[in-house]
């Protein structure tokens, strides 16, 4: 048993923000009570959370763990250790592994590896189409039975509107969310950053915001047509956000996520350094402003990292040749505190919601701190000063634009199924 004492419990599901003690028994929460009122059972470990926030376990809806197939960039073991450091208790792993997670045996492999070597829970996302090639629908039902929580052809959109419609129809019947990497690939072809004054000045090929929003429009209309649960991944453009807002106002079952790098950086920050290269690319100043507003007003449902490790041998090349993607697990909370809370834009409660109940709702699960719930908790400080040194990361990759950045606030303990997965 583990008794977490003297913490400030923030539980968005019940709007709780109070000094409470939490007693964990095995994999479940046993009791939640006013500070000092829970008697410490014989032999229970005590975790003193004085001055710390005790939140439901953070969920990352969007991560690339690279296993199977690209273990030189990341493994389930190294990736989940980095996730635990960042305070995440569960990460959804995108299916663009080698082979693609488009059948139940790959799904089971990932879950087995996670059970054997994972620091935190791994919730696999299955491919929408076979090989994510956009031709035939993958074995979604078999993968669901094996344990996937959603489908996506992430890295690219579901190739055609027709197939996207069919996947949405099918997933509606299976009650699975469809996560879309919304991108018009013809508009984005060859581009390495967002189109704008900066891309023009640097001579780097840009993709317009419409490369995303054109496909978001397609996907939202198909969600309306099919009634499917649609989740827009790593939304970056103001025009996309406005469409999601419109879709929500029509009552569609639509949600979206925003990454910390998109709410922190903009295209003007891009230098000739591939740590600034990701897809969708860093957007315009006004896009970032819109994302911040959407994070505050509820249009955005979740903060997701799009943790995308690439080993130095792949990433340390000319900007044009480097693969898209940056690390995200360990800097997400620090950036959210800095950009959203310390800036006064969001309450701490709302920020916690974006890491917990928000992503949980996307997946159709609950996330709260009450007796009987899984003992997944993220305990963090809003004050602790630290500097991110990517060379010290448990990740196998080093591609972060936030290396050497100083933060105020960090995960202090990550508890997964009653077990301490990380403790500072």
């Amino acid at each position, binding site marked *: 048993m583990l008794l977490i004492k003297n913490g400030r419990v923030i539980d968005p599901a019940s709007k709780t923000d109070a000094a409470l003690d939490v007693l964990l028994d095995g994999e479940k929460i046993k009791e939640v009570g006013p500070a000092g009122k829970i008697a410490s059972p014989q032999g229970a470990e005590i975790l003193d959370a004085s001055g710390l926030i005790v939140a439901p376990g953070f969920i990352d809806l969007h991560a690339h763990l690279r296993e199977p197939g690209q273990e030189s960039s990341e493994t389930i073991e190294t990736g989940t250790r980095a996730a635990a450091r960042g305070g995440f208790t569960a990460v959804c792993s995108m299916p663009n592994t080698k082979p693609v997670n488009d059948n139940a045996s790959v799904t089971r492999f990932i879950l087995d590896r996670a059970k054997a070597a994972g620091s935190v829970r791994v919730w696999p996302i299955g491919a929408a189409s076979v090989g994510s090639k956009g031709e035939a629908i993958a074995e979604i039902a078999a993968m669901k039975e094996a344990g996937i929580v959603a489908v996506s052809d992430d890295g690219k959109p579901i190739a055609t509107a027709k197939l996207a419609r069919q996947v949405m129809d099918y997933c509606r019947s299976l009650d699975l969310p469809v996560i879309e990497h919304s991108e018009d690939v013809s508009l984005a072809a060859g581009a390495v950053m967002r189109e*704008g*004054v900066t891309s*023009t*000045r*640097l*001579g780097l090929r840009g993709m317009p915001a419409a490369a995303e929003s054109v496909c978001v429009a397609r996907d939202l209309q198909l969600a309306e047509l099919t009634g499917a649960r649609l989740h827009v991944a790593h939304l970056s453009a103001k025009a996309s956000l406005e469409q999601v807002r419109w879709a929500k106002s029509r009552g569609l079952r639509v949600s979206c996520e925003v990454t910390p790098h998109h709410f922190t950086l903009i295209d003007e920050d891009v*230098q000739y350094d591939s740590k600034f290269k990701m897809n969708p690319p860093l957007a315009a100043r006004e896009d970032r402003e819109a994302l911040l507003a959407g994070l505050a007003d509820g249009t955005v449902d979740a903060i997701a990292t799009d943790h995308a490790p690439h080993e130095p041998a792949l990433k340390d*090349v000319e*900007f*044009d040749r480097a693969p898209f993607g940056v690390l995200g697990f360990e800097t997400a909370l620090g950036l959210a505190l800095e950009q959203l809370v310390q800036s006064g834009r969001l309450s701490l409660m709302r920020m916690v919601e974006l890491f917990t109940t928000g992503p949980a709702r996307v997946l159709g699960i609950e996330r709260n701190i009450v007796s009987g719930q899984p003992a997944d908790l993220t305990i963090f400080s809003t004050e602790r000063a630290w500097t991110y040194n990517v060379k010290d990361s448990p990740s196998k990759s080093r591609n972060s634009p936030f290396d050497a950045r100083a933060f105020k606030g960090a995960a202090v303990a990550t508890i997964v199924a009653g077990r301490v997965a990380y403790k500072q």
Partner: protein
Amino acid sequence: MSIKFRDLLALEPLTADELSFLLDQSKPFQEIQKHPLKKLATLRGKTVALAFFETSTRTRISFGAAASRLGADTMNLQAEASSLKKGETLLDTVFNLNAMKPDCLVMRHAASGATDYVARHLDIPVVNAGDGTHEHPSQGLLDALTIRDRLGTIKNLNVTILGDILHSRVARSNIHLLGKFGCKFTLCGPAMWVPRELEKIAPGTPIRCVYRIEEALDGADVIMMLRVQTERLDDPPLSANDYVLLYQLNAVRLRRASPNAIVLHPGPMNRGVEITPEVADGPQSCVLEQVTNGVAVRMAILYLLISGATESGTHPALEVKSKESANASD
């Protein structure tokens, strides 16, 4: 005026004084081009590595001639003969070249920023001989030198650039150089190649984008042609006939410009496409002077960078890097 710099990667970060210094330093080397005996011993014993990861004829030959006339030896790497096709990374290729101990690396690459990236990892001077669609600093300098010789000044001129500006490193270097001397720019070409974003790439420099060549030429003092890259005509698919109809510089259109206007072209020219032979060979054309001045400017660049004849003062683009700091940043 003196500056201390290690690399020449871009003209954008340079001040007007620094640019004037570079132009002034080119003057004696212009004189040398007129001598029957053009070879100096200034850089005898030094080696210049010419690494052209993208095909180039005149720029490579021009840098080679510049090095040779300064008495330096050259090492040549051409993309097709390189290890890149065997899977070696750019950095490994450059480190191998560097291990042969050249005193300077002159590099061209199809990726914008590739020279910046390489320079961050090397402790010898790096000269950008054209990186993707970013900059071509020596071309910007030789164009300015040509204009100054012909018009007596590079200040406050009306400069018109015609063609595919979006993909032109020459246009960017010219804008960043001449813009610092009060020149006003008019950019003209098919709208896909002349996006409005170009008006904001050099804050403080008046730049306007127009889509009718007549409007672009009105009152121009300098007309810079850009090569119509036939490979670009596929993206976007644009008819060459349409291009000629709308944007070809011919003698009739040229009359709209100022009477003393000069015409520059970085070459290679497509006669009959972007420019008529009449204009290309006419009295206002400076294309061959540009080529001659190219050798002079490149001699000045190599001389300044290799001899360390530059003096104190720091600058971000003419980067000051001690060996220690260059290594530490890696």
